[in-house]
C-alpha cells in the first residue's frame, strides 16, 4: 500500500515537469513585453533595460524555465506584475475562499446527488426517476454563469432575500454553493443511479432477496456500499471540475478566490500570477487524483495494484 502510494507520487513528478514546461513556454512565447506593460507610462529605455535585467527577462527562455522550476520547488512562484506582491502570497490569501466554496459545494452535491440517485434507482423508469434524471440532465446542460444570473435575479432582485455578491457571511454562500454544486449533484446522481442498477443485477442481491430480506435492507446492507465505489472515483474528476467551476462562480459572485485571481490575471496580462495559479491548480488536481486512487483501493479490496 505505502509502496504503491510512493510509486504513484513519484510517477507524478514527470507529469508535473511536463505541465510546468507546457505552461511556462505557452506563456513566455507571448508577444508583448511584460516590462512595457508594467511601466506603461514611463518609457526610459535605460531604466527599462535595467528592470529587464533585474528580473532576468533578458535570459533565454530555457534558462528562465530552469530557474522558475528551482524557485517553484521552494514554493516561490515569482512576483505579480500588477499587484507587486509575491504570487505565492496572493494564492495563499485567495485559496481558503475557494476551498470553503468548493468543499461546501462538494458536500451538498454528494448528499443531494446520492439521495437522488438512490431514489431514482429504486424504481427505474418510474415517474420520479424520469423527473429526477431529467432534472439532473438539465443540471449538466445548464451554463453555470446563467444559473448564477437567474438565482441572483430571483433571490437578489425580485425577492430581495439574499445578497448577490460578496463572501462575508453564510448568507453570501448560499447562491454560489448552489451554482457550483448543482451540476456536481447532477453528475453524482446519474452515476449513483447507473451504478446501483448495475449492482442490483448481481447474484448476491438475488440471494439476499430470496432469504427474505426486504428491498430496503438489501439496498442498505448489500447494494449501496458497492454501488458507491465508482462514485468515489469521480471525486478526482470533481476536484478538477470544482476548480474549473469556481472560475465562473467566483467571477459572477465577486468571491476573492483563486478562480477570480486567474481571470483578473488574464485581464491584467499578469503572466507570473496566471502561471502560478495554473501550476497551483493543476498540482491540486493531481493530488486529488492520487487521493481518489488510494481511497478507491482502500475501499475495494478486490483491487490490487500491479506495476504497469
Amino acid at each position, binding site marked *: 500500500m505505502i509502496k504503491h502510494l510512493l510509486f504513484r507520487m513519484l510517477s507524478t513528478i514527470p507529469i508535473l515537469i511536463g505541465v510546468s514546461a507546457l505552461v511556462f513556454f505557452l506563456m513566455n512565447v507571448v508577444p508583448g513585453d511584460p516590462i512595457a506593460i508594467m511601466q506603461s507610462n514611463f518609457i526610459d529605455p535605460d531604466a527599462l533595460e535595467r528592470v529587464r535585467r533585474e528580473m532576468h527577462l533578458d535570459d533565454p527562455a530555457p534558462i528562465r524555465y530552469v530557474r522558475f522550476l528551482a524557485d517553484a520547488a521552494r514554493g516561490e512562484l515569482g512576483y505579480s506584475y500588477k499587484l507587486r506582491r509575491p504570487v505565492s502570497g496572493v494564492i495563499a490569501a485567495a485559496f481558503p475562499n475557494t476551498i470553503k466554496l468548493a468543499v461546501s459545494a462538494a458536500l451538498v452535491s454528494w448528499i443531494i446527488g446520492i439521495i437522488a440517485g438512490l431514489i431514482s434507482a429504486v424504481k427505474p423508469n418510474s415517474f420520479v426517476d424520469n423527473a429526477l434524471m431529467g432534472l439532473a440532465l438539465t443540471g449538466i446542460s445548464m451554463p453555470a454563469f446563467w444559473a448564477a444570473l437567474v438565482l441572483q435575479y430571483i433571490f437578489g432582485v425580485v425577492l430581495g432575500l439574499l445578497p448577490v455578491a460578496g463572501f462575508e457571511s453564510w448568507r453570501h454562500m448560499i447562491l454560489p454553493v448552489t451554482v457550483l454544486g448543482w451540476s456536481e449533484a447532477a453528475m453524482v446522481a446519474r452515476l449513483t443511479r447507473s451504478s446501483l442498477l448495475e449492482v442490483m443485477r448481481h447474484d448476491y442481491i438475488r440471494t439476499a432477496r430470496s432469504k427474505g430480506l426486504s428491498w430496503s435492507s438489501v439496498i442498505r446492507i448489500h447494494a449501496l456500499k458497492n454501488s458507491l465505489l465508482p462514485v468515489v472515483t469521480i471525486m478526482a474528476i470533481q476536484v478538477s471540475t470544482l476548480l474549473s467551476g469556481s472560475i465562473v462562480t467566483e467571477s459572477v459572485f465577486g468571491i476573492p478566490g483563486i478562480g477570480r485571481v486567474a481571470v483578473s490575471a488574464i485581464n491584467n496580462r499578469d503572466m507570473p500570477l496566471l*502561471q502560478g495559479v495554473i501550476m497551483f491548480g493543476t498540482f491540486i488536481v493531481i493530488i486529488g487524483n492520487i487521493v481518489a486512487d488510494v481511497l478507491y483501493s482502500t475501499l475495494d479490496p478486490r483491487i490490487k495494484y500491479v506495476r504497469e
Partner: protein
Amino acid sequence: MSENNELPAVRAENSLRLDLVTAFRRNRMATAGLAIVSLLVVGAVLAPWLSPYDPYAIDLSNKTLAPSASHWLGTDELGRDLLTRLIYGARISLMIGIVPALIAQIVGTSVGVVSGYCGGALDYLLMRIADVVLAFPSQLLALAIMYTLSGSLMNLFIALSVLGWAQTARVVRSLTLSLRGREFVLAARSIGVRNSVIMLRHILPNCIPTIIVLLTMRIPNYILQEASLSFLGIGAQPPTPSWGLIATKGKEYLFSAPWIGIAPGIFILVTVLGFNFMGDAVRDALDPTLKD
C-alpha cells in the same frame, strides 16, 4: 475461415447505421434532441431571412426595451434586437461545438491508432504528452492558451481543439491495443498487408462507434466551454453575437433589463440539452461501457 475473419469489420459498418436508426426510433428523447438541433441548424442557416433586424446595427434610441410585439425578446444595451442576435449566435455555438470537436477527434484518433498499433518509444512519447494535457483542469489550460493567443473566436477554436485530443487518443489507443491482437489483424499481417492499410482498413472502422460516442459527448461540452469563456471575457469579443458574451452584458443590466442575461442562457440550455438527449441515445446504442 477467411470469411469469418472478414466479419467484424463488415458487420461493424452495417450495424452502426442500424444501431443509430433504432436508437433514435426507440428513444423519444433522442427524437426531441434531434428536433431541437435541426431547428437550431435551420435557424442558423436562415438567420438573415428570419429576422428583419441587423444583429450589429446600433440604435441607441431603442436601448434596453422590454420584450414586445416588435422585439420579441426586447433589445440589448445598444438597442440591437436580442432575438436576432441570439439566432445569429446559434451559428457561433454550432460551429464551436462541431468544428473543434471534430478536429480534436481526428487528431486524437490518429494519435491513438498510431500509438497503439506501433507501440514502442513513439507510443511512450505520445502517451506522456497526452498525460500532461489530461493532468490539467481543462478550464485552466484553456485560460493559459487564451492568454497566449488573446481572446477571439478563432483562438477559441484552437484552444478547444488542443484540449480535446488527449482523451480521445487514450481511449482509441486502448481499443487499438485490444484489436491489434485479434485474428483478423494477424491474418491481414500474415498475408503481407502494409501497416498503414491495416490501421486504416481494419483497426479504424472498429473504433468508429466509440469515436462517435466521444464526439457526441464533446459537442455539448464545447458549447458550454465557449459560452463560459466568452462570458468571462476571454473568448469571443464584442460585437460578436456569442451567447456567452451577450449574457456578460446581461450581468450589468440584471436590475434594469434582466432579459438580456436570461434569454441567452435559455438558448444555451436548450441547445446543450438537445445534444445531450441525442448523445445519451447514441451512447446507449453504440457503447454502453462509456457511461460516465
